[in-house]
């Protein structure tokens, strides 16, 4: 017992996860609920509606995994915690997966006892400035004050960018986006920086959105994706391949509308394998053979999820066409290995 405690202490100090002997899938099944960690409410990705329901792109990834396991998208317990404790909540086993616009970086992947599964959204850091400020490029921000969220990669990227280009940027930090936006609108800083996905949504809520423009530079790569604990390869496979399945479904033209038809009568072998009428991918993952049928019927394919939560017809309004987030076959880099 003392050894275990010591080991746990070491685990905390060294930020390596204790090994949870029990398989995550087994734990989730026993509990009857998937503990999925999202962040404090953020539009488009994990939004909390006034009726208490969660929705968004990252939330749908939780729902997809829940459907894969239980056949029901609602067997999810959403844990909404601040960014500061997100990784600890994974390490201590409170959350089974983390799906909250978390940037995949080498340090996080190697030193926190966590594993990134795959990328669900490609983001990048941009700047927003008042249109009448005369600033036309991020390189004009010499000596400027910039509002930035604290405790995120955004803050670090800004520091790097400032140093690399000798900009001597001063930062104004806060953990609450609304406070930052208010500071920016009140003239407390010359520019506001965040991931572009967040910037677009925030600008739409400004008193006069057209008075603020994006600078052309994207100063960082922000591949965002779900995270699982290290040391449970089967669980990692399950989460990863559920997401791959959703992406493959879009590529193959399987939608929530036609999935039942296609499952009954698969038009080609790729679809047959995806929907489990052929092969045994589902069983190998510890799931029903036709788990993807349930997932797509309940959640839809990647394109449907995207358009539903952050597409141009939503308030968040992030265009997809011609960006990194288009399918690889349409000029983007959303790409999933084949389901076979």
């Amino acid at each position, binding site marked *: 017992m003392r050894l275990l405690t010591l080991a*746990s202490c070491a685990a905390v100090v060294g930020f390596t996860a204790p090994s949870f002997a*029990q398989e995550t899938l087994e734990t989730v099944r026993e509990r009857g609920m998937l503990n999925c960690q999202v962040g404090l*409410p953020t539009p488009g990705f994990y939004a909390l509606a006034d009726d208490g329901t969660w929705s968004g792109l990252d939330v749908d990834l939780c729902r997809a995994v829940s459907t894969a396991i239980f056949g029901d998208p609602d067997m999810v317990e959403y844990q909404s915690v601040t960014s500061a404790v997100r990784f600890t909540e994974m390490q201590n086993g409170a959350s089974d997966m983390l799906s909250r616009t978390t940037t995949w970086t080498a340090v996080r992947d190697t030193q926190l006892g966590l594993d990134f599964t795959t990328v669900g959204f490609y983001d990048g850091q941009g700047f927003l400035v008042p249109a009448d400020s005369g600033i036309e490029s991020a390189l004009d921000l010499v000596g400027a004050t910039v509002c930035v969220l604290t405790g995120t990669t955004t803050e670090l990227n800004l520091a790097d960018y400032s140093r690399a280009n000798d900009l001597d940027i001063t930062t104004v930090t806060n953990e609450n986006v609304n406070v930052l936006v208010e500071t920016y609108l009140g003239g407390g800083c010359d520019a506001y920086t965040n991931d572009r996905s967040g910037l677009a949504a925030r600008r739409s809520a400004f008193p006069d959105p057209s008075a603020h423009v994006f600078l052309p530079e994207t100063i960082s790569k922000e591949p965002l994706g779900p995270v699982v604990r290290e040391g449970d390869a089967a669980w990692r496979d399950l989460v990863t391949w559920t997401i791959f399945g959703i992406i493959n479904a879009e590529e193959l033209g399987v939608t929530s509308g036609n999935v039942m038809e296609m499952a009954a009568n698969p038009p080609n072998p790729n679809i047959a394998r995806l929907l489990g009428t052929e092969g045994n991918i589902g069983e190998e993952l510890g799931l029903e053979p036709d788990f993807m049928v349930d997932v797509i019927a309940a959640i839809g394919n990647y394109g449907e999820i995207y358009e539903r939560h952050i597409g141009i017809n939503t308030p968040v309004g992030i265009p997809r066409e011609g960006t990194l987030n288009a399918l690889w076959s349409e000029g983007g880099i959303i790409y999933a290995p084949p389901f076979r």
Partner: protein
Amino acid sequence: MALVFESKPDRPPPRDETGLAVWVRRNLFRDVPNALMTLLGFYIAYVVVAAVLDWAIFNAVWEADTRRECLDAVGRSGACWPGVVEWLPNLVYGLYPKDAVWRINLGFLALVLWLIPLWMPRVKSKVAVGLTAVTLYPFLASYFFLGGDKGIVWSALISLGLSGLVWVWATTISERVTGQSIAELLGKTLAGGDNDVLQRRAVRGAGLVLFLAAYGLVSTWSLAEVRTQFWGGLFLTLVISGIGITFSLPAGILLALGRRSNLPVIAVLSTLFIELFRSVPLITILFMFNTMLPLFMPEGMEVNQLARAIVAVCLFAAAYMAEVIRGGLQAIPKGQYEAAASLGLGYWQTTTQVVLPQALKIMIPTIVGNFIGLFKDTTLVSIIGLFDLMNMARAVGEDTDWLGLFIEPFFVVSLTYFVFCFAMSSYSIRLEEKLSAGRER
């Protein structure tokens, strides 16, 4: 014939010494600098109040479907209340299922019912009523709030809570009507005469019948489980601070007594506990309990997140309260102990009859100050992902329809906190006045 001294009635003060005009001249316009300060003060108050009223009422938007509509209508010059109104149920009840909020209301109604007798004249058993409110009410409330599968033990505890409430009202009515406690009244009516043993048996029998009836009633109830993840808003804030406050006072008294104890083990343990929890910020303790504790627990054992937060808050509050109480204990002159000892009172009698009543009385302002501090400190639980009032207010501004709306909800939340804290503070002042009646001449 006895000479009786009778003073003449006082003459009224001279005319130019009374009245509003005199008061104003004396207090507000005594001399030129004083008059200038008064005018400046009025001007500042006017500017602030006018600006707030303009924003909150005159320029405010009361009907809109999204924040965009508010912005288009008045820009930033007026508040946008529809967002707050739409979120109001969440600000109060959290994400609790909306068709089950009657359970929360009923739970708090039970508390109000339980506490009303404390303010009623001619009720003698106030101490017992207060004690049962602290010890039995939580069981009743827990089932209303949490619901779900109740085992035999929990059913019995809930029934105990229910019978407690019935007893409180039975005794209140009995004492107000007949001046006797319900036990006396029952004993006399059931057993008659003055046979003490029979009376006591009758009372016990009645208690048992009440408990069994309550148990029968409770076992027919079945409320769906609402897991604590859905608790939030003002409700959660009240639950956490309520438990923290009720726990911290008795625990603080025990710890304070422990620290002053002559028994070395108890003194050292109490001191250790107090110093440990007092020298660490609450946020650290919350983090410890929330994120570290699961690492040390046996595999597969999950303790509810809310329970962990409440335990953390309780222990922290108890440590602080202990020092407050100790301060009060030290203010009691040694003569009081010696007087008690000379009367032959033992340790517990001295403590409960002589020392504590005096100490607690002089500590009221500090104790209530601590309660108020604790009430506000509970906002920290938002960091570990509990949607208390504060976190809920933040969520309003992240709703897609109301994106960026955060001043209005925080304004409402500030008012709510003010109302609760001000009520606690006023009550403590009233209590002080009432208890210090003996000191006035």
